[in-house]
Each structure stands twice: as structure tokens, then as C-alpha cells.
């Protein structure tokens, strides 16, 4: 009996090996086609990658980087080769394009291009959408626990309310936080006017008594444990907080919304640009997109996928239908002098929070 079982198992193993060979896709010369994907770890659910391979026969060679800057260095060293598709943040893509390390997309190969939400198109890093297709978007919101807050929060200005004393947690990203004060003053995130930045700093000092925590990692835990009632945090943290406690409220600040985009581009000398186009088109399918964004926890940039996102995720993964791009602004790099003013204002603010 035991022997029969062993023989069967061995045969099954061989059969699966042979089957594996059968599905392997080869190009005209009999070479295997692969897609060299270069991005952060864990950007796609494994099933989606497997489906792509099963459908097209293109195997995916996934390599990661931790920082945008590392990606740029490697891409520069490879002279725009080695990788077929890269996903990185907006500001670094601006540099990649300026350095001539990206190639223009062939729209005829991307049938689903029209699915992209136009709100996320035509941004500073690629004004004519020639090089990139947006993937996940980070949208700056305010999250609060309605049970622990007496006022209704609709915008950044409400954070200055006295009833929120020592009850707010914020991320340690000074462009975002100084930006809140800039927005309350009706200014742009990207102003290089030192007087305006200083005015925002003065405004921030009034917010200091309400701040209890400033930190980048796991701020959602403090909101969930009741340590704080209001949080301004990263999109992925908002998603985690909402998953754990659906009663939390997510607000699009009425003063304006800051956002960032991670986008896909094909390097100049990509070994297999066809596979990259195929992959972009595959990901832009509404049903594939919806699954990716639900898994990733960033805002959906695929308009056609919005309605497929499960209702439980909708509130924090899609923009409301009536939403317009009027109040939205991306945070861009500013000059050294403005950057230093931001850093100084921020240090003053943090010290004031500790008083």
C-alpha cells in the first residue's frame, strides 16, 4: 500500500514538472520571456502576478528597493537598462524623466489607458502623461474617533479647536504638517516665500498644545488604543486604522488636499518593453486594479475600478464621486532656502509641543 502511494506521488510530481515546462513561454528564438519588475516590496498580491504569468506566459522577476533614491542610483548605473518596469514616487520620477532614463509609453499597446482617473493625470512629474501610468495614490486626510471628539471636524482649521487639547497625533513629515498651516492660511504647499512659511510656523505654534504625539511609525495604534482622538497620518496607516475600527471617520479637509502618486514607468533601455506594456494594460483592467488597491491600501487611481471596490473599503480607498481636482495639490521639492525655513519652523513647533 505504502509503495503504491509513493509511486503515485512520484508520478504526480513528474507530471507537474512536465506541466510546468509546458506552460513556459518562449519567444521566437526559444528564449523564455520575463518581466523585470523593480519596486518596493509587496506592491501586488501574489495571485495577480501569477494570473499575469498564467495568461501571458511572461514570468515576473520581482526585485525591490527600499528608497526612491536607491532606485535612481541603480537605474543610473544600468543606464536605463536591466529593468522593464519600475514603480516609484512622483518626485523621483520627475528626476528620472529629466535624466532621460524613461521611455515614452506606446498608448496603442495600453487599451485600458482610458480607465485612469483623470484627477491623477497631467501632474508635475509628467505633465502630458507620456511616460507614466499612476498606481497607488496617497491622499492626506484627517481621521478621528467621533466618540472621543465633541466637535465635527471638516478641515484643518478645526484641529486648532481648544477641545482637542493634547489629543492629536501627527506624522513627523514637516512638509505635510507645515502644509496644514499653509492650507489654513490659504497658501500653496510649495510656496518658496520665506515670509509665508514663517507665518505658517507662527500659526503652527498655536496648534502645539493640542499635539500629543509626533511620529511616523504605527501612529494608527495610538488612535486605536485611545491614546489620541484625532490623527493626521499616511494613507496606509489610515487604511489599517479603518480596517480595525470601521467607526473612525475619514475627512477630506475642506481647505485643500495634499496627495502623492506612485507611478509606473518603463526605463529607457528596458530589455523587454513589450512585456512591460502588457503588464501595465493587465493591471489597468478594472477587476485586477480593484483587487490590487484593496490589497495595497492606497487610493485607487483607476476610475473604472472604483465601483468594484468592496463597500467596506470604499470610504478610504476611493474619492467621492462629486470630487473635483480643484482643491488638490501635490507636494513638490522646494529650493534650499525654503526647505531650511521649513526645517526651522518645524523644530520650533516640535519644541513648543513639548512645553
Amino acid at each position, binding site marked *: 500500500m505504502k509503495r503504491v502511494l509513493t509511486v503515485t506521488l512520484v508520478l504526480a510530481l513528474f507530471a507537474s514538472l512536465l506541466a510546468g515546462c509546458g506552460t513556459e513561454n518562449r519567444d521566437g528564438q526559444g528564449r523564455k520571456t520575463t518581466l523585470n519588475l523593480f519596486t518596493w516590496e509587496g506592491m501586488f498580491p501574489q495571485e495577480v502576478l501569477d494570473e499575469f504569468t498564467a495568461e501571458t506566459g511572461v514570468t515576473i522577476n520581482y526585485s525591490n528597493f527600499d528608497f526612491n*533614491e536607491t532606485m535612481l542610483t541603480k537605474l543610473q548605473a544600468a543606464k536605463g537598462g536591466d529593468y522593464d518596469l519600475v514603480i516609484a514616487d512622483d518626485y523621483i520620477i520627475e528626476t528620472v524623466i529629466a535624466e532621460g532614463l524613461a521611455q515614452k509609453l506606446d498608448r496603442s499597446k495600453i487599451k485600458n489607458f482610458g480607465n485612469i482617473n483623470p484627477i491623477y493625470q497631467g501632474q508635475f512629474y509628467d505633465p502630458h502623461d507620456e511616460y507614466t501610468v499612476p498606481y497607488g495614490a496617497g491622499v492626506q486626510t484627517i481621521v478621528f474617533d467621533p466618540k472621543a471628539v465633541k466637535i465635527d471636524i471638516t478641515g484643518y482649521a478645526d484641529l486648532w479647536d481648544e477641545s482637542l487639547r*493634547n489629543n492629536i*497625533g501627527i506624522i*513627523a*513629515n*514637516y512638509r505635510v504638517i507645515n502644509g496644514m498651516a499653509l492650507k489654513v492660511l490659504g497658501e500653496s504647499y510649495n510656496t518658496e516665500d520665506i515670509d509665508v512659511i514663517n507665518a505658517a510656523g507662527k500659526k503652527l505654534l498655536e496648534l502645539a498644545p493640542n*499635539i*500629543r*504625539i*509626533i*511620529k511616523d511609525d504605527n501612529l494608527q495604534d495610538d488612535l486605536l*488604543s*485611545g*491614546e489620541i482622538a484625532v490623527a493626521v497620518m499616511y494613507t496606509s496607516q489610515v487604511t489599517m486604522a479603518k480596517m480595525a475600527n470601521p467607526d473612525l471617520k475619514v475627512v477630506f479637509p475642506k481647505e485643500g488636499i495634499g496627495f502623492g502618486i506612485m507611478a509606473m514607468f518603463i526605463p529607457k533601455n528596458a530589455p523587454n518593453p513589450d512585456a512591460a506594456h502588457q503588464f501595465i494594460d493587465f493591471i489597468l483592467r478594472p477587476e485586477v486594479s480593484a483587487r490590487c488597491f484593496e490589497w495595497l491600501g492606497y487610493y485607487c487611481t483607476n476610475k473604472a475600478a472604483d465601483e468594484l471596490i468592496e463597500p467596506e473599503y470604499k470610504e478610504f480607498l476611493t474619492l467621492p464621486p462629486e470630487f473635483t481636482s480643484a482643491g488638490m495639490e501635490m507636494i513638490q*521639492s522646494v*529650493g*534650499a532656502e525654503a*526647505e*531650511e525655513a*521649513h*526645517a*526651522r519652523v518645524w*523644530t*520650533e513647533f*516640535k*519644541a513648543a*509641543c*513639548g512645553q
Partner: protein
Amino acid sequence: MNAGETRTRRRRGTRAASLAVAPLYAFALLFVVGPLVYMVILSFLRRAETWGVVRELTLENYAHILEPVYLKTFYESLKLASLTTLLVALLGYPFGYFMARLSRRWKQRVMLLLMIPFWTSSLIRLYGWIIVFRANGVLDRLLMALGVVQAPLKLLYTYTAVVAGMVYALVPFMIFSVYSSAEKLDWQLVEAARDLGATSFQAFLTISFRLTMPGLLSGVVLTFIPSMGLFFIADLLGGNKVVLVGNLIQEQLMKARNWPFAAALSVVLMILTSLMIGLYRRVSGVKDLEGLV
């Protein structure tokens, strides 16, 4: 064997010895002096518009430090370091002193208990403190059960929490250095003082305390220097609201990408710390710091 031969052999011996220590010198040059020189040079350069530095000499970065915002971080660091050192000395000195008087067996046991926490990363141990301090955490529940307080105290993310974390992280260093000093103490001297009519307190002050001074002072140095630089405790337990020089350097380096300014801050911090150590030695008159310098 004549004298000349011995001389050559001895010379050969020294040459072999210097060859043997050469890697050590190379290591020190490469990994200690090298980065230090690099940092000092960096502190005189100008930052580039977006990324990196421009090769252009300037004193701007040092002028920057004189701005009140940044001077204040030095004041805050000195304040926290002094307070931590004081508390560590008050807790650690008696501990180390009495530990040295235990029987051999108990000494080993206490030593083991002191060492065990070091098997865990200090970061993880700090997370332990978060569990203790957080709202409705261990401490809150204990105090409420005892009826000391009615509502949860907001202990986490306060200055007190930072000080507690600092003292916790640094007290072992004080204990070890006081202990090693007190271990060597000749207790017969204390007995002699008692025989000559000193009270036990007088005997402690004139004999034991004097003789354990090097241990105490090296403990002070071992506590003071790290507490000038430990920024993650203020981050984790203080919610980032206490801005120390360490935090500022980290932020300028990682977030503001202003490397020259971060380097200038580090240079000033190093000079300041060295001056403080010099001052301790001058004031205390102790030339020999237990196991240090």
C-alpha cells in the same frame, strides 16, 4: 651571543610587534579617524539645492547653530542629560556599592539578573515601557485598582516617560562601574576608621566614597555621553516633543537632507561633550576613571 646580536634581535622583535599592531592602526585610521575627518570637512560645505553637497567652503552651518531654535536643543539636551545622570547616580551608586558587599554567590546571581535584559534589543525593551505607560496600560490599571487615581493618567508621551526611559536604559552602566570600584575596596580601611571612632557614615564619606569615586565618575561619563545622543527614547516615549540635538541631527540628515548642517551639529556636540568630561575630571581631581580613559 654578543650585544649586537641581541640588539638586532630585539629590534626585529619590535618590528614584528609593530607589524602585528599595524592592522589595528589601519582599522582605527580607516573607521575612526576617517569618518571624523569626513564629518568635519562636510560641516564646512554648502548643501546642494536638492541632493548632496556643493564643494564650496562656508561657515554658514555653524552660524545656523547660533539661531535660538537650535541653541535651545543644546540646552534641552544638557538639561535632560544632567537630570538623567543625577537620577542614575542616585539609583545606581547605592546599588553597585551594596552589590559589592554581597556574598560571592549572590554577587553572581545579581550580576546575572542585570545582564539578562541585555539579551533583548534595547528598542524592544522600550516598547515594554510603552505597554506600561500607555492609557489603560499596566501602570494605569494598577494605580486604579489601588485607588490611587480614578481616571487613566496620560503618562506616555510626556517628559516623565522620557526621563524614566533614559534612567532605565543607562542605570546598568553606573551599577557596573561603581561595583567594579567597590569590589576593589579594602574593607579593612573602613574597619580601621570605625576602630578610630568614626561613625559608619563618617567612615563611608572619608574612606569608601573617596575610594569609589573613580567608579562613580566613570559611571557619570558613561551615562552623560550616551544621554546626550540617545534620540530614540525621546522619539518613542516622548512622542517626539522633546527636541534633543540627537533628534535634530537625525532629522537634518534623513529628512531635511541638510548633511552639512547635521555634520556641524555633530562636531559641536562632540566638542561640548569632551569639554564636559574634561570639566568633570578637573573638578573631581580624579585622574583615573574606572576602566575608562
